[in-house]
């Protein structure tokens, strides 16, 4: 039985925005930089509460990221937030050198991430940034699964030293974690025990994974473990390897390209420590497009359906132990 039930829907960006206010109360060193879209990524909450510690930089993400490094090198704890499409890729050089190489205590909020941005379309649907970000030395990289976890994760990076990036989204998504649900950077959460297949998910795909696990149990008699792998870096090797040891096969699921994302990170851990079959659910090497979030998730194969089919495939592969020549983005549908 699932101990996680639907508690309503809320965008993860609210968790980020509300956490900044709490952090602002916690320390005078917390400052926030705005990149014009403060009402979208909800740095506006902080701006209203602490106008003296909010600095508008305008539509100049590279400058904001680097100014943040300067503030951090002056002992401040600067947060800058923009859409991931810009906060990550436009600022790749600035993140690499001024933030990460400097080991500057800069926190980046990557908003409007993933396909669930919806109607804004492909230009604004960042689906690639995890691949680049997780290769940056010194960077902590988090993808919270719901509103409350986004709040906890934001507070956690604010209170720990070092460059960090947190990915969150625009649209309302299921809330299911509770106050008492554990959250610790670098510790993946086993949300559901299981023994036939381990579903390792992050972001909004964690809720889909929980639903898929129910269906696998009810319709197929398959016992699925569900892991919320919210920390892409530093990745929780122990929990992932233990899941492989227990279930002997894995499905990963993320609202991101399959190439280079969380699933790739899991595959590295598994290849290194205890190779078992892995099936990957995610964006299949394509750009998104306009539409409502649910329509897009359906179209691009980011639902419980793909997770269930991939789990069945994963279980089959575990038993057969044969090879194939399939493309990595060839997801069971």
């Amino acid at each position: 039985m699932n101990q996680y039930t639907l508690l309503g829907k809320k965008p993860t960006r609210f968790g980020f925005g509300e956490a900044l206010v709490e952090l602002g109360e916690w320390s005078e060193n917390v400052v926030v930089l705005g990149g014009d879209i403060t009402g979208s990524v909800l740095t506006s909450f902080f701006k209203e509460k602490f106008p003296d510690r909010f600095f508008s930089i305008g539509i100049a993400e590279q400058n904001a990221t680097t100014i943040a490094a300067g503030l951090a090198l002056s002992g401040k704890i600067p947060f800058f937030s923009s859409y991931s499409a810009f906060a990550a890729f436009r600022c790749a050089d600035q993140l690499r050198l001024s933030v990460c190489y400097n080991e500057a205590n800069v926190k980046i909020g990557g908003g409007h991430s993933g396909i669930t941005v919806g109607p804004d379309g492909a230009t604004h649907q960042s689906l690639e940034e995890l691949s680049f970000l997780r290769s940056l030395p010194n960077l902590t990289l988090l993808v919270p699964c719901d509103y409350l976890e986004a709040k906890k994760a934001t507070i956690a990076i604010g209170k720990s030293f070092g460059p960090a990036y947190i990915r969150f989204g625009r649209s309302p998504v299921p809330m299911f974690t509770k106050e008492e649900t554990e959250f610790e950077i670098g510790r993946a959460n086993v949300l559901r025990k299981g023994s036939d297949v381990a579903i390792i998910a992050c972001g909004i795909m964690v809720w889909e994974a929980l639903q898929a696990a129910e269906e696998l149990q009810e319709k197929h008699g398959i016992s699925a473990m569900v892991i919320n792998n919210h920390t892409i870096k530093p990745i929780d090797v122990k929990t992932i390897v233990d899941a492989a040891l227990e279930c002997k096969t894995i499905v990963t699921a993320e609202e991101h390209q399959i190439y280079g994302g969380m699933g790739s990170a899991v595959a590295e851990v598994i290849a290194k420590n205890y190779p078992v079959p892995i099936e990957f659910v995610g964006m299949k090497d394509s750009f998104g497009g306009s539409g409502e979030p649910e329509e897009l998730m359906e179209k691009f194969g980011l639902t419980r359906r793909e997770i269930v089919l991939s789990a069945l495939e994963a279980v089959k592969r575990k038993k057969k132990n044969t090879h194939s020549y399939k493309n990595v983005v060839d997801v069971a549908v």
Partner: protein
Amino acid sequence: MNELLKFDEKLFKNQKRKAQEFEEIAIEIRRDIIKMLFQAKSGHSGGPLGIADIFAVLFFGAYMNYKAEEPSWKERDRFILSSGHYCPVLYSALARAGFYPVEEMATLRKFGSRLQGHPGRDMGLPGIEASTGSLGQGISIAVGMAISDKYLDKNEQKVFCLTGDGELQEGSCWEAAMAASNYKLDNLCWIVDNNDCQIDGRVQDVMNIYPLDEKFKSFGFNVIVCDGHNFEDIISAFEQFSNNSKKKIGKPCVIIAETKMGRAVSFMEDKHQWHGNPPNEEQALIALKELK
């Protein structure tokens, strides 16, 4: 190795000086640059030699507050080398100010050295405030620091930053300029090494950035143009900045220093070919003979 190529022990104090007193310091810095680059067998000669006079005044003329024996002194002014490839001149100034032992200059660009090919904070060389080298970023770091000093810590400290002229082709420099002016950073002194040289040739041929004074003026800067090889002129430029900063004029300052790449070494002067090359032993010895 030839005795001439060894580093001597001279240290200089950061104090008010007459113009002619800076000559000796600038020569020492240039000699260090030649020796360091000869030993490293790679690195940038032209830019550092050209800006040595500015460094002599900035680091040893009491325009920047620091304590070499206490590099992270809370009340210090900070210097950011946005043009990271100029690092030999900064390494020399820091050594001559007593931040670290002068003989360590011989390790420039070598394995495990604190004197990285471009400044790296991770190696812990005292006096290095930020890792820089991807052009157009150091100036934004400096803006962040100046915002922190002026608005958050509300102190009287200053931030100095050097960019090249070719570096101004990076759009992010102008984002930094916009923010510096928007936030009225009168505690920020941006020095542009206007040597009209970059790797591919004359700046105006690679991509014209001029007129610089008018550009900075239109961005809201207090613009000071100075002859970067005339100590009276350099002193006057830093005096103006200091006074304006004290008066809180509400404008950032840019000192456009007219310099010659490779200055004071006859075969390097004003030759963009010396942007990214070190002298060999013969060339180094000729240069050192000239630098006296």
